[in-house]
């Protein structure tokens, strides 16, 4: 059942293989998170009957595949912690550099926009992370991508509706603090997608296997360094302000 759905009988009676174009498959493969890419692209290939049917099938499958992957990789508690760290970063940057900004129109909402975009970036980065050995530098990649996305959103807001964009200094300063805060949160609570797993291991084992980082193990120096860096940055900011 279902075997060879991608093949149809030709006019001569022989089997004429039908397959989607390489470009269409490449686009679909790019949009599907790597963890489930192979089987979903394979299933869509097997179900191929025409370009239109393939496009409709892909359009109905990809969003749900992404949502399902996000549900598996996003831990609500960690997401909440990261959202708090992101918002606090931009709020802290405004507080430290120019408190009068906080009393302008829509200030708190304007601060929430880059934080929300960065949060979305973090969630998507987690969903697209390939399973592999945990590496502290890889954990910084997510926050770096998220901050870049937040800065890009600010640039596009400035072109579209500048009333909701943050001043350049605040976006950059807040982004730098967000990078540090989020990196520390992710080092303490590594994302589930970054763990090693076997193809035949039930996913609920994978979720249970994500334990908080061992502070006495090989990450301890990285964590200490990150904390020292944060203390130094905050100390410098406070020193230059007062």
């Amino acid at each position, binding site marked *: 059942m279902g075997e060879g759905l991608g093949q149809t009988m030709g006019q001569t009676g022989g089997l004429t293989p039908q397959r989607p174009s390489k470009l269409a498959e490449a686009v679909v493969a790019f949009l599907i998170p790597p963890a489930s890419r192979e089987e979903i692209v394979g299933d869509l290939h097997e179900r191929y009957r025409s370009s239109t049917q393939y496009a409709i099938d892909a359009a109905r*499958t990809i969003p749900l595949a992404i949502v399902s992957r996000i549900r598996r990789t996003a831990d609500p508690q960690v997401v909440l912690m990261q959202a708090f760290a992101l918002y606090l970063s931009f709020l802290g940057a405004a507080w430290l550099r120019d408190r009068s900004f906080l009393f302008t129109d829509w200030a708190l909402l304007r601060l929430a926009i880059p934080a929300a975009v960065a949060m979305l970036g973090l969630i998507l980065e987690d969903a697209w992370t390939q399973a592999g050995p945990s590496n502290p530098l890889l954990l910084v990649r997510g926050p770096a991508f998220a901050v870049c996305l937040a800065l890009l959103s600010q640039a596009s807001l400035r072109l579209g509706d500048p009333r909701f964009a943050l001043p350049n200094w605040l976006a950059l300063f807040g982004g730098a603090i967000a990078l540090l805060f989020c990196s520390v949160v992710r080092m303490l609570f590594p994302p589930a997608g970054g763990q090693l797993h076997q193809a035949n291991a*039930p996913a609920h084992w994978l*979720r249970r296997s994500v334990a908080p980082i061992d502070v006495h193990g090989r990450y301890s120096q990285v964590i200490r360094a990150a904390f020292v860096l944060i203390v130094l940055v905050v100390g410098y900011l406070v020193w230059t302000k007062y």
Partner: protein
Amino acid sequence: MADRKPDSLGQFEQLVLTAILSLRENAYGVTIHAKVQELAAPRDVSLGAVYVTLDRLEDKGYIASWKSDPTPERGGRAKRCYRVEALGERALQESAITAKRMWDAVEQAWGKQWAKGWGKRWGKQAG
């Protein structure tokens, strides 16, 4: 794991579990979707909804998955095959028992004659 009491299943979860159970060794995305479509007829079922449910059932420990060897009709890609675990079988059994109790109650309320006629109509619809 064996002592864990399974959560109650949603209707779509029941359909997906039943499809995997009936397909045995040949249960993977395409075949599961085709079987669920058959079971849920005339309702239209998307392939994406099947993937979401498969992931959820796997997270709950009701099913297990593994990757098969790549095949040419899939463009050289592997299938993800599924099988029902003991916990999933128990959950499905409980759902079937509940459905049976519901059927008995409906039969009692509307009469055996109605149930017979309805059974015939349903049989024709299902082919």
